[in-house]
Structure formats: structure tokens, C-alpha cells
């Protein structure tokens, strides 16, 4: 099966409320599971970044739709290329809700500090891209020395 993945970053037109985020999460989960789209979306303080993977026609169409979405602007596509295998089993969204109560139980939600390390199926270049994107959205982590990148011996 042909597969493709796309990574972009963008800016929300206005800060998203918990309610907005909840709706976005529900909507994306519904659409993405229907279209067999997997990946992860980061949101923090108006910064948005997403990686999604799926069949090329579907990722292409999805990106066209995302580009036209009026809720964000400055959409910058960082990568769009064929991949051999999926690196994400599902689609997730990671953000800091104002009220974390209720979110923790939500399907597809992740606290940003619980985002798993980029899987080994990604190339180092793509794993680094994800790390940089995560850094751009959430800012420098307080955790020591980026444990999520694979160590030199594992490469």
C-alpha cells in the first residue's frame, strides 16, 4: 500500500479555548478514523503543528482542506513524502487544557509531557523534525537532554 506523510506548522487565528480544542479533537478523530489517517497534532499558545500519514490521495486532500481552514493561518508545509510504514498506530492530539479534568479520559488526547518518543520507524531526519516541531510548539522542555531521540548506539 502506498503511504505518505505530511508535517506542517501554523498559527491559530485566535487562541483556542478548551471547548474549541475539545470540538477539534472530536471532529478530527471522527474524520481521521474514517479516512485511515494516523498521526499527532501539537497545540500550545496558538502554535499548531501536525504530522499525519495515510494514502497519498487522502493526505493530499486533507492538507488542501487544512490549508483553507479559517481557524489558522501561516500554514507552512515542512515535509510531504512517501514512507514505507506508518509510525503512529492512531491519531492523537497533545495540548495543555486549562482544565485538565475531563480531558485525561478523552479518547485521542495526550498531555504534552506524555507524548511518546518518535518511533524507530521514522528516519533520524524525520524524528529530528518532530522534535524541532514539538520544541517550536511547546518551547524548551524542562526534562533533561531530550531522552526521546534514539541514542547513538541504537541507530
Amino acid at each position: 500500500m502506498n503511504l505518505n506523510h505530511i508535517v506542517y506548522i501554523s498559527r491559530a487565528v485566535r487562541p483556542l479555548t478548551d471547548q474549541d480544542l475539545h470540538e477539534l479533537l472530536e471532529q478530527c478523530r471522527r474524520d481521521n478514523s474514517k479516512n485511515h489517517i494516523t498521526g499527532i497534532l501539537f497545540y500550545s499558545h496558538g502554535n499548531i503543528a501536525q504530522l499525519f500519514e495515510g494514502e497519498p490521495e487522502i493526505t493530499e486532500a486533507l492538507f488542501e482542506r487544512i490549508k483553507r481552514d479559517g481557524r489558522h493561518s501561516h500554514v507552512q508545509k515542512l515535509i510531504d513524502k512517501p514512507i514505507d510504514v506508518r509510525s503512529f498506530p492512531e491519531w492523537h492530539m497533545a495540548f495543555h487544557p486549562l482544565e485538565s479534568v475531563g480531558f485525561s479520559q478523552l479518547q485521542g488526547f495526550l498531555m504534552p509531557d506524555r507524548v511518546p518518543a518518535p518511533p524507530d520507524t521514522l528516519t533520524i531526519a524525520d524524528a529530528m523534525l518532530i522534535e524541532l516541531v514539538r520544541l517550536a510548539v511547546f518551547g524548551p522542555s524542562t526534562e533533561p537532554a531530550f531522552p526521546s531521540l534514539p541514542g547513538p548506539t541504537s541507530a
Partner: protein
Amino acid sequence: MREQHLHALLHHLPAGVATLQGPDLRYGYLNKAMQELLGTDVAEGQCVADHPGVLPSDLVDVLQQVYHTGIPYVAKACSLPLPPQDGKESVSRCYDLVLEPVRDDAQEITGLVLFAVDVTQQEEARQRAHTLAMETRRLDARLRVLTETVPQITFSLDAEGLYEYVSPQWYYFTGQPPTADLNAIWPLLIHPDDRLRVLYQGDAARKAGTGWSYEYRLRRHDGQYRWMLSRALPELHAPDRPVFWHGALTEVHDQRELSDALRRGEAELRFLADSIPELIWTATAEGFIDYYNHYTGEYSGLTKEELGPTGWVNLLEPRKQAEAARQWVKSVAMGEPFEGLFRMRRHDGQYRWHIIRARQLADERGPRWFGACTDVDDQHRLREVLQVQYDELARTNRDLDTFVYTASHDLKQPLFNLRGLFEELRRSATFDDPEEEQLLSMVDDSLRQLDSTLQELAATVQDQRGLSAPVEQLDLRHIADEVLLGLRAQIQASDATVQVEVADAPTLLYGRANLRSILHNLLSNALKFAHPERPPVITLRSYLSANKQPVLMVQDNGLGLTIPKTPTTAFQPFVRQHPQVGGSGVGLYLVQRILASRGGHLEVSSSIGEGTTFTLHWFEEA
């Protein structure tokens, strides 16, 4: 039946109807609406003049005149107060009052018919329209003031592309008379290089029914062409095609010049970056590479798209990629410079060593990264070759030292045996010839010299090994005393005087064995090369130089020595200045080696027959 029907109709007519009969105009018929209008105190048979109800008095006069002249009259939009009803306050309503004379068969006027038609709504609408017109006029005036005050030239075009209006600023700017034909002159004032494009773009936008935004040069009154930004939007009368375009012309000459200069500067920098045979790149604040210079493509054989925002890491050796990626992410997170030595793959698959350096530039345009990868492969290889050669040399040197040490050690035993045998021989043998007797003492001297040479050889090797010994704070007087104790026999034999003056710099941070070896060699030399005609006087003085560096001076009044022309060959091992005096000749060589290896140097001044001064600079002057 029909008359009754008609009567009912008349009675319920929404307009008021009344007949006024006779010259004194008495009320005749009053329909319902008229009765309500005039009020309840008006009844059939009464005189209008006595009971006018709500009718104004001047209307009563007019009624009389119409009756007398027989000319109908319409009083338009008469405001009549309505009688209070159901506790509501009295309100005025507007009526058109129609006065029509009634004639009999002989055309004589017998009375009047009065119609009252309620026109309040029409009147209100008219009032509103009037207010609106006033407001429009006011807004129009304001708009005119605004359009004529702003620095921009404003204009309106019709659907044909003809100018409907242009603000006076256009005339000031172009210097054209107010009578100028706009449509004819305007295109001629556009710079010839821009004219065709502007006319085409304007036409295209009008055909498509869209607005436009473009820049062109327009001739100013002084003949200079200035860059203008023309922007216009269509006025849509939905759903039809636009009928007007309204727009503004802004002078952007200075901005344009500035941005041209910026563009030129950027193009030049880019050209520079593309001309350098090094991999040069820039990255966004987030750490995504957004520019690779031309050489990067040449070196890697990959396009900018193939490399992508993070693809540079693919050029590194696979086992170093994760480490480099981690380092880059950390640099971006902390804003710290990136530096590392990596092997990078060339288009032909060969890996070459590169120093990758990147620094963050933070200015008002926000942080950006500038990086370069410098090919250091040749230097790296050279260094590797040198390192191998150095290691080999060091090993050879060590082997040599070991050999000398072992040899000197191994020779000691046969020498010892030889000496024992010789002693035995001297004790037992007798010589007839006294000159032959002297041979014995010559052999004895040679044996002693061989012994001391072997000892010094062993000492040299040992001292060389001691060069890497750790340093400690040493008391100079203490060490000097130890050494002098060892030389006590020679001092006594030569009746020498040794002065130790170390008060100015009493201590020294040095290797203990090294210091002892240096002092021993210099002092024993001074004793050995004493002048035969006078007892030796040796002075040892420790002091600080002008730069606060410790210095030791050793002065004697001995034979003196010849200083070689080239200082590098000053004291080679086994080269002896005074062959008549015993010694292996390694002493000064050793002193020099130790000093040099600890970062110092030896200075010598000497006069033959008068004495020698050695100045030991322990450390190189800063």
C-alpha cells in the same frame, strides 16, 4: 336597494366625506370617518363657522371662497389634531383636504363636498427621505473633504475604464491643468516601460470584475518618474457586473528604493554564499533549514527539496546521526552555538571530515541560524598520519632509553669484575720498570672514568623518565643543601666556597628529581672545571625576573667555556668542552633538556679563564 348599498359603502369609506349645504355651509351628510375626524360636537344641520371641530379657522374662510368662486381647492398635508380617544393623548395626523363645489341642474352652486384623505404615512416617508437626503449630502461633503485631504490620489473608473473622478491631488502631483482630459493624458504620464503592463492589468481586472494592486512609475510635475502603488476595488451592484472601480494611488517610491536596495544586498550576499566552496546554510528560529548554498547541492548531489528542513543529518555517518540530531535540537532549544566534527557523505559516496558550525543571529527580524560546514578532511588525515609518526617516534625513543639503561646496567657487572681482577692483579703483580708501574694507575683512571660514564648514562635515562614527574612546591635551599652534601668530598678536595642566596625567591614549583639533577650537574660542573690557580667560588642565586618569573643564577670563577655560535647545538650529549677533565659530557645537555621540557630555557655567558654564569629561566616569560 342599490341606493342603500351605496350609502353603506360611502359610510364605511376609509376617507372622510361630508357635504356642506347652502351659503351658510351647514353640515349635511357626514360619513363615519369624517364624524370621527371632526369630533362628536359636530352634527348635521350645524353651521361650519360655528362648529368647525378640528378644522382650522383659515380653512373655514377658504370654504367660503370656494363656495363663492366655484373653483375647487385641495389643501395638501394639513395637520389636524385628532380628538383624544380611549384616554390616549391627542395626536396630529396629516390629511389632504379636497373642497369640491356641488352644483344643481342650473349650474348654481348649492353646497360643497369635503373629502379628507389621511396622508400621514406618505408625509412621514417624505420627511424621512428629506432627512436622508440631508445626511447623504453631509456624508458626501465629509467624504469629499477626506478624499481631498489624504495624501493619496483617489479615483473612480466606470465599467468602460474611463475616469469618472480623480481627486485634486492628481493635478498637484502631475502638474496638469484642471481642464486636462484625464483619459487621454493619464496613460501618457506612465513610464513607457510600465505603460503596456499597467493598461493590460487594468483591463484584465475590469474584465474579470476584480480589484487590482500593482505598482508603476508615474511622471511627476517636475518630470521625475515616481513609483506609485495603485489599488482599486469594484463597486458591485449585485448580482450584476461591477459598474465602478474606486481606488487610490499611493507614492511608494522611497520604500521601493529601500526594498530594492535590500533585495540587491540580499542577492549579493546570496551570490557570495553561492560562490564559496563550503557548505553554507541558514535555518529558521525553529531550526528548520530554509537555505542551502549552491555548493551544498554540488557536494551532496541532492536538491534543496531532497535535503529538506532536516535532511542534512542524512549526510552524516549513520552511527553519528542521532547524536548530531540531539545536539542540534539542544542548540535550537537553548540558542547555543552548534559545533562538531563529522564525516559528511559526498555525492560519490566518499565521506569527508567536516567541522559543522552554526550560530544564532537575533535581531529585530527574530532569531535565525547561520551555519557552515568546512571541509577539514585533508588536515584531519595529515593529523592522523602525524599522530602515527609521533607515536612511533615516542616508542622508538623509549626503546632507545631502555636499551641505554639496560646496556649501562649490564656493563656494570663486567666492569665490577674487571675492577676486582685488576685490584687482585695490582696486589699480586710486581713491576720491574717503574714506568710500567705507571700503567697501573692509568688503567685505574680509565676504569674509574668508565664507571662514572656508565653511571651518568643510567642517570640521564632515569632523569628523562622523571621529566613527567608531578611538580611540587620545593624549598630551594633545602634541595641545594642536599646536593652539596652529596658533593662534600669534591668541595673539600678543591677547597671551594659555595654561596647560596635564595631569599628573593626561596621556593619553586618543580619536579623534585629534576631540580636535584639540575643543581647537581651545574654544581659538579663548576667544581670539575675549576681554574687550577685559584680555589673555586660558586654563587647560587634565586630571584624573580621583571615579569615575576623565578630565575636561578649559577656563577663560578672557573675555566670558562666557548659558547657555540648556534645556540641549538649548545650542549649536545657526549660533546665535551674540556677533554683534559673527566666526564661523559651529558651534564649540560641534560640540564637543557629538563628546562626545555618544563617550558624554560638556559642562558650562558662565559669568559675563558675567568668563569661562567648560567642563568636558568625556569618558565618562559609571559
